């Protein structure tokens, strides 16, 4: 009885205090390159990728820019297109030491949770899967 009550209290506490998604454990729903992502955009880009929103998304692209706000870095990846379309990946805090080794122009593969599209595709809770210096 006491153990049961403790389990219920523990469960409720866990639900109310859970910190959010763990990208490492999330099942990858799609793995593509920035070129494929932008080539597949149609006029209604939101609808093209709506089924992947809030899902784990792996994307490989060329590192265009790195920004930092507080403890979090963001990577901006681009494809070969001339147009100003980017993939914006806000990294997990623990990715800092890896991000600091990257150079602009590196090919980088990132896994994150797709949140949607503005000017760019936006991924949060990102982790670096691999880095290929070319």
């Amino acid at each position, binding site marked *: 009885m006491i153990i049961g009550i403790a389990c219920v209290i523990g469960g409720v506490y866990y*639900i*109310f*205090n*859970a*910190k*959010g*998604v763990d990208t490492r454990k999330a099942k990858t729903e799609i793995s593509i390159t920035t070129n494929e992502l932008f080539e597949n955009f149609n006029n209604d880009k*939101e609808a093209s990728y709506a089924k992947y*929103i*809030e899902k784990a998304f792996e994307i490989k692209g060329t590192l265009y820019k790195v*920004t930092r*706000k507080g403890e*979090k870095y*963001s990577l*901006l990846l681009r494809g070969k297109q001339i*147009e*100003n*379309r*980017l993939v*914006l990946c*806000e990294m997990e805090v623990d990715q800092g030491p890896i991000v600091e080794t990257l150079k602009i122009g590196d090919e980088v593969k990132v896994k994150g949770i797709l*949140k*949607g*599209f*503005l*000017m*760019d595709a*936006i991924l*949060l809770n990102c982790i670096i899967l691999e880095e290929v210096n070319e």
Partner: protein
Amino acid sequence: MNKLLLLFFTIYGVGLVHAQDQYITRQGEVTFFSYTSVENIQATNNQVASILYPSSNKIGVQILMRAFTFEKSLMYEHFNESYIESDLYPKATFQGVIVDFDPTQEGTQTRIIKGDFKLRGITKPVEFKAMIVKSDNIYSISGALDVSIKDYEIKVPPILSPNIAKNVQVSFKFQYAPNDNQK
């Protein structure tokens, strides 16, 4: 002219001007605070897109609602699924003008921004004070406004009503660079 920016401003009606007059940010910061005696809730979105046209004083903002981050995942779920209904209304937008803005003035100026804020498909006129700083051809704009949850028909279940403020304070910080630098 960049096709995406063209689309952005065709949709949001801010107007079309020459590319050299566009200043953009794709990582603006918007934070909201809900203060009550029961609970304080804060969320931040660091991926807000905005374009500023200094010559016409016009400004446009797009906010992806799912890009707000909360301390606890349950708050995130309530916000997106129950209150904002982000599946139906994924973005909030603002379009407006900076009143009496002098884009050539270096340093700080405090101005009123007037415009229309659209949230959950509902558009309301808003007006708020903002601090604008120009330095080295970069414009920084920051400020705050109060948003009434009633105005945007945000429905809070009676049991959670004491936890959610009736007026939510929204603050913002944008740093705009010339669009040429963003390519």
